[in-house]
Every structure is written in structure tokens, then in C-alpha cells.
């Protein structure tokens, strides 16, 4: 079905994919998620095929979000129990506005239908027609961002593990910095603060896309998060576990003095 719904109304995984439905659930449970919409796999395919009516429908829904936009794939079987498509399907940050969305959606659709994605599918025994939903959200301009495990993914200890860097969280996810490393116990007490080596920050640029920006020397080894922010992240972890269950892998961002949840999924066996 060719559908676009506000993120908080995305309930059907088979239409919108697990990422969209997970974020929808987060909003319904009062978690701080940036505003956005969910696009079904069928409407993404229709836009990739150049269907005018589908393009108009998407632009109508996305225009109120303003810009710039974060456009993330939400494959129907993405991050499922059998296989993770992380790294196969595209995420496009800093798409300037709704008018630029068609080519972004086409790129995402093709990323799910690329040779490498198909090779991966064959390898994991999922040689089936891919369906890729999409989440479109207002792109934050974070001061800092990163990942958080609600349980230590390496030792299994019952503590929060937080990694943080300046700017967009892609610097941490893509491994282009050594992030700050923090551990926080179940009562919110800080167990460890180890500054990283954050020579670059990923930031949006005017006109679209992102750039790796040089970090001022005095910030390279300065901690991104103080104890008050760590406390907020600890509370976010607690809420995520209440909503989704234990052992969560969270992507977060700190923008305008507020902590946002960008993604929450189960910790995989091997951690990230």
C-alpha cells in the first residue's frame, strides 16, 4: 500500500519496516524523538519509478517538516532476528528539503536492490524481493551525539555504556573518531569517563550532504558530556528499557539542550 503516515502512527512493520515502527512506538510512549513521517515500501518504490502521484503525496507530507531532513531506510526485514541489513541500505543525512526527496528515495530504493545488498541476501538465505520503507525526520544539528548500550555489550555487566563525539552521531557509528567512553551504573552513578580523540565532527552543509569538519584543538580531547547530561542519558536508557525491554542499543543526539532518541534496537549477540 502506498502510504505516508506521521511517525507516531507507524504501527505495521510489514508496511513501514522495523525502524519506523520502533520510532513510532517511542513517540507513542512519550520518548523524545525528532518529528517525522514513515513511508511504506510501496510508495518508496513508486517514487523510485517516477510516479508523479506518489511524489506529490510524499512532498505534501514532508513539506511541513521543513528542512534539512534525515532520510533513513527502514527495510521491512531490517534488523530482524535472522539478519541485519545495517550498512547495506542507505541513510541520507541533510537532504535540503522535500523537493530533493525523490532522488534521495530513489537512491535508498536502489541501495536495497544493489548487487552488494543482493549478494548479502543470498549469503544469509534471504533471496527475496526487498521492500524498503523510509523514515523522514527533521535533521538535528547536534552539539554531540553517539550510541548507548543499556547493558555492557562486551562484558555483559549491568551498566550503561555510552560513546559520544561532537556533531552528528555518524562520526561514532562510522568509526571515524575515537569517541569519549563512559560507563554509568544502574543508579545513575558515573563509573568511568574516558575522553576520546575526536579530531573531526560530521556536520550538515548548506545545499545537502555532510562534511567531516575539523574539531578545534581544545575540543579534541575534551569530554562531550558532563554528569548532568550523563544523567539524562541514563534516564533515557531506563525509559527505553521500560518501553522495549532490556539490553538496548540506542542512537542519541544532544541538540538545543535536549537529549533525543534517534534509534533503539536490541543489542545483537556480538554487540554492534
Amino acid at each position, binding site marked *: 500500500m502506498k502510504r505516508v503516515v506521521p511517525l507516531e502512527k507507524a504501527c505495521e512493520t510489514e508496511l513501514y519496516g522495523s525502524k519506523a515502527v520502533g520510532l513510532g512506538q517511542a513517540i507513542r510512549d512519550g520518548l523524545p524523538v525528532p518529528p517525522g513521517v514513515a513511508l511504506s515500501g510501496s510508495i518508496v518504490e513508486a517514487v523510485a519509478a517516477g510516479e508523479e502521484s506518489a511524489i506529490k503525496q510524499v512532498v505534501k507530507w514532508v513539506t511541513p517538516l521543513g528542512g534539512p531532513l534525515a532520510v533513513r531506510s527502514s527495510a521491512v526485514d531490517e534488523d530482524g532476528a535472522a539478519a541485519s541489513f545495517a550498512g547495506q541500505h542507505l541513510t541520507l543525512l541533510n537532504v535540503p528539503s522535500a523537493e530533493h526527496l525523490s532522488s534521495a528515495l530513489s537512491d535508498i530504493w536502489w541501495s536495497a*536492490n544493489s548487487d552488494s545488498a543482493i*549478494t548479502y541476501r543470498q549469503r544469509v538465505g534471504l533471496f527475496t*524481493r526487498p521492500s524498503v520503507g523510509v523514515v523522514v525526520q527533521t535533521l538535528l544539528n547536534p552539539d554531540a551525539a553517539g550510541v548507548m548500550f543499556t547493558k555492557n555489550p562486551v562484558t555483559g555487566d549491568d551498566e550503561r555504556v555510552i560513546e559520544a563525539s561532537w556533531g552528528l552521531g555518524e562520526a561514532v557509528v562510522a568509526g571515524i573518531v575515537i569517541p569519549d567512553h563512559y560507563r554509568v551504573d544502574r543508579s545513575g552513578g558515573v563509573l568511568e569517563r574516558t575522553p576520546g580523540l575526536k579530531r573531526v565532527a560530521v556536520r550538515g552543509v548548506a545545499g545537502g550532504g555532510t562534511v567531516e569538519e575539523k574539531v578545534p584543538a581544545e575540543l579534541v580531547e575534551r569530554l562531550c558530556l558532563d554528569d548532568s547530561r550523563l544523567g539524562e542519558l541514563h534516564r533515557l536508557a531506563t525509559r527505553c528499557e521500560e518501553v522495549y525491554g532490556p539490553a538496548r542499543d540506542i542512537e542519541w543526539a544532544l541538540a538545543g539542550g535536549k537529549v533525543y532518541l534517534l534509534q533503539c534496537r536490541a543489542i545483537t549477540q556480538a554487540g554492534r
Partner: protein
Amino acid sequence: MEVLQRVPLFADLSEREVRQIARLFKARRFAKDETVVKEGSGGAAFFVIESGEAAVFIGGKKISTLKPGDYFGEIALLDEGARMATITAASDLLCYGLTYWDFRPLVEANGSIGWKLLQGMSKMLRAAREG
């Protein structure tokens, strides 16, 4: 639609049939020097070139150049095997692509397309034997 009508593979189809299959194709742009398909990788789609040129390499050696109207990528879709060549965009390239899931039913339903694919592969086989 106009692009597909110019492609020899679809030359025997009626206008209505071309219109039907045109709905299945999706535009895909590649920047100059971008790898379009890679030898040894699994195959996801079949492409026809609308504009630009692409270079074909096998084992690192350049074999040929593809131009508007040419098609590629069908072999890995037919046998569900690995790509037999690496193809890179020799200029900015606009292709129309058809994924495996649409390509197979299209060929199964259109004998003339299947016949032309066989003719194309026969030519390739003969050229390979003749060295």
C-alpha cells in the same frame, strides 16, 4: 518509454507492451568512474543505458564500451550467479534498471525478449570461442 523503444532487445514489442514494461524500469544515475557492477558480485538488476558510456572489464582488462541503447547485467540474473564483468561509468551515466524480481517474469512472458537474449548470449559465446 522512448528509451526502451530504441533498445533492440525490445524492438519487436508492441507500443502497449513497451508501455507495460516501462513501468517496471527505474532510473539510476552513476557518476563518472563509479562502479556500476562488479565482477564476482551477485547480480541484482539488468540495465539499459539512456545516456553516457560505460566501460566493460573482465579480469581487469577492458573488453568493450557500452553506449546508449546497449544493455548489460542479464547473465547474472538468468543464472542467479556472479557478475561476469566489471562495468564502470566512463562518463556520467543514466541507466534504466529492472530488478531480478521483475526481469524474470518479463522474460518468461515475452518469447521475443527471451529469443533476443539467447541471440545476444550466442554471439558472446561465439566471440569467446573465437578468442
